[in-house]
């Protein structure tokens, strides 16, 4: 047993860290937040230059085939920097859907472009403000053309293509590939708690699409895709949680009240200790999920749900209580606390909320598997 990332994997993470420290500072994030940029462009270019959109794409499709463990550490860095790039939508969702479900022709067409960052993709699922289910998908595909409206699509403003969950006219739900640059696609910017995510409502009015994966298998495939993506999003979440905790600790050391650093008051010390504990548990669950993803383990659905549940909890706790540690400064626009708070709440809901993932965890919990901590 060796429960750690390799030196090679860590090396890539260090490179990403350096890239983002230069080109994805909170000043860059704020440019997107305040509408002065659509994404952190140099950061995205840097990621593309490093070949990272193709991290898990086979070399035969132009990828670097570095594996999921590397991709997990990249995701952690993106989360730590609240990176406003199309990376997560394009890589964890669109590219992953094609890798898992597309046919050879589709892969040959799109994977090289995605791996090279020439096009970016996303996933379009939700149509209502109820948690998504098989019963509230009204988008329909007839004669190879998609009509319907997706209420919220992450990076939907900038993506070139989308994997779309829709219902076949005479069949069940399935995944389809749509080119968002088509004239019958209309995109409207959507205001959310995290404006750095380039969210859009997308209306399809008879847009030609291709089936990805089996007809009628859309719902199961979506679950499979979510399981895989959940691991990567969980790494973004723990990355962000760590940054929020670091920010809280630094402030508590330098800010004085009553003649002493506020970090010497137990109320705040213990709050940060609890943040650390939540983060540590989530981090360890993420490590296990990374292994399950990388090794195609049968444990993946459980490992993914476990990582997702604890990472969502950890990031929401750390980003919230980082504000509390900062006191009045914590809810000013000027301080960076809200960048983490916004992103934590966005990530908590993308792929479905905590309640849905808790339910999924219990669904996939095999009988008799209730570990004591060993």
């Amino acid at each position, binding site marked *: 047993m060796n429960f750690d990332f390799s030196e090679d994997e860590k090396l890539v993470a260090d490179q990403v860290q350096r890239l983002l420290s230069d080109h994805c500072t909170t000043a860059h994030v704020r440019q997107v937040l305040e509408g002065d940029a659509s994404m952190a462009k140099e950061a995205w270019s840097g990621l593309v230059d490093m070949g990272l959109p193709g991290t898990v794409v086979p070399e035969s499709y132009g990828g670097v085939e570095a594996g999921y463990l590397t991709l997990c550490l990249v995701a952690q860095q993106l989360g730590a920097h609240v990176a406003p790039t199309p990376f997560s939508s394009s890589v964890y969702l669109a590219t992953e859907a094609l890798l898992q479900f597309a046919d050879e022709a589709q892969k040959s067409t799109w994977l090289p472009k995605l791996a090279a960052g020439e096009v970016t993709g996303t996933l379009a*699922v*939700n*149509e*209502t*403000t*109820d*948690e*998504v*289910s098989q019963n*509230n998908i009204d988008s329909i595909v007839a004669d190879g053309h998609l009509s319907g409206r997706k*209420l*919220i699509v992450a990076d939907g403003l900038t993506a070139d293509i989308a994997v779309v969950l829709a219902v076949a006219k005479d069949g069940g739900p399935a995944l389809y590939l749509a080119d968002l640059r088509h004239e019958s696609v209309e995109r409207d910017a*959507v*205001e*959310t*708690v*995290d404006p750095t995510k380039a*969210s859009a*409502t997308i209306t399809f009015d008879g847009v030609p699409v291709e089936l990805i994966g089996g007809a009628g298998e859309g719902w199961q495939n979506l679950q499979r895709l979510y399981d895989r993506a959940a691991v990567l999003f969980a790494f973004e979440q723990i990355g962000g949680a760590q940054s929020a905790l670091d920010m809280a600790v630094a402030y508590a050391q*330098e*800010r*004085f*009240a*009553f*003649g*002493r*650093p506020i970090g010497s*008051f137990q*109320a*705040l010390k213990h709050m940060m200790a609890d943040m650390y504990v939540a983060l540590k548990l989530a981090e360890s669950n993420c490590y296990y999920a990374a292994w399950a993803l990388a090794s195609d383990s049968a444990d993946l659905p459980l490992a993914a749900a476990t990582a997702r549940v604890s990472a969502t909890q950890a990031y*929401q706790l750390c980003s*919230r209580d980082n*504000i*509390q540690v900062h*006191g*009045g400064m*914590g*809810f*000013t*626009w*000027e301080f960076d*606390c*809200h960048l983490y*708070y916004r992103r934590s*709440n*966005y990530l*908590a*809901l*993308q*792929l*479905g*909320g*905590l*309640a*849905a993932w808790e339910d999924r965890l219990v669904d996939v919990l095999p009988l008799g598997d209730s570990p004591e901590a060993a």
Partner: protein
Amino acid sequence: MDFNDTKEEAAFRAEARSWIAGNAPAHLAAPLASSTFGGINTGDEDPLQAAKAWQKKKADGGWACLQWPTEYGGRGATPMQSVIWSQEEGVYGKLSGTFIIGQGMCGPTLIAYASEEHKRRFLPKMASGEEIWCQLFSEPVAGSDLAGLRTKAERDGDDWVINGQKIWTSGAQHSDYGILITRTDPTVAKHKGLTMFFLDMKSPGVDIRPIKQVNGQSGFNEVYFDNVRIPDAQRLGDVGNGWQVSLTTLMNERLAIGGSIATGVPEVRELVESLNMGPGKAIDNPAVRSKLADWYAKSSGLKNTAARSLTALSKGDVPGPENSIGKLVVGGMMQDIAKFAMDIQGFGSLVMDPEVAEGNARFQAMLLRSPAIRIEGGTDQILRNIIAERVLGLPADMRADKGLPYNEIPTGS
């Protein structure tokens, strides 16, 4: 024990109700009711003008600052009558937010410490909303540790000259006057060298800069003082006695804030009754029911605690620090409610566009505004300290600044 009105209370209620029916701005009722947390909706009207208009009308009718003496613009009413008025005023009460700091905190401080002449000059216009007041207490270096403030007042003839900076001043941008706590002697212990004044916010050298909050609003301000002159006649209380004066203000803050407090419970209840979740509505889901019940019990507990305080007040008791629990309970609860309400809707709940997701913005507004509740007017941590020390009688924290003159207290910089 009796929850019904006494005969006198019933008569007062009828009178209030009748006056409101005849005078309230009925066209604002609907927009006000749809206000989201952290803002008021007055439709096409300017919120400040709408608020001032209603306040003036109330004052003219004798329904402003009910508990103040009539000679200062009040009605000389009992605490119970004041509550009955609030119940009857209902949704129109949302228009009073602009005046709460002045009427709830500055007013009582003036009543306790200002000269008779000043009281007759300033209180009636404060009551009628013609003049708005703010409270200049917190500073960048003095938040929870309020008495650690730096803003300096130096005597110069009949005036005092003020230099320094305040922060978190609600409504400073449209205030006419403010009460201001300053340090007049940095060589004595920090609580002992403070002095309170009131000042004209249009005085030369006062510079007001709004603070943008996480939710994009700017209810708070920074206020800079550059050689601002205040006549000594506008001093409230003795020189060096500012801390005691501020306690009067802050005790009334607890009353003002504790008086009426949004919890988020009605909103989440409305949501779960209509939201689809699994095979039924969210309200049929046991996890939702359990949380709703707990939140209802908490908000009900606050409501009933307020009723007990009111009874005590009616009997002449002074409200104690136990009233700190309202904000402490609500801050955490509203954060939980906002998170939960969005969680059970999933990804779609992030959409704020009211055309596609009516009512959703409510929970997003709570999500972005509720962290501030746990901080403003005393952090959760300070409130727990107050409860522990002043209600339960537990020992104070160890003090690093104990016995030190203000200018020798460690500041880390």
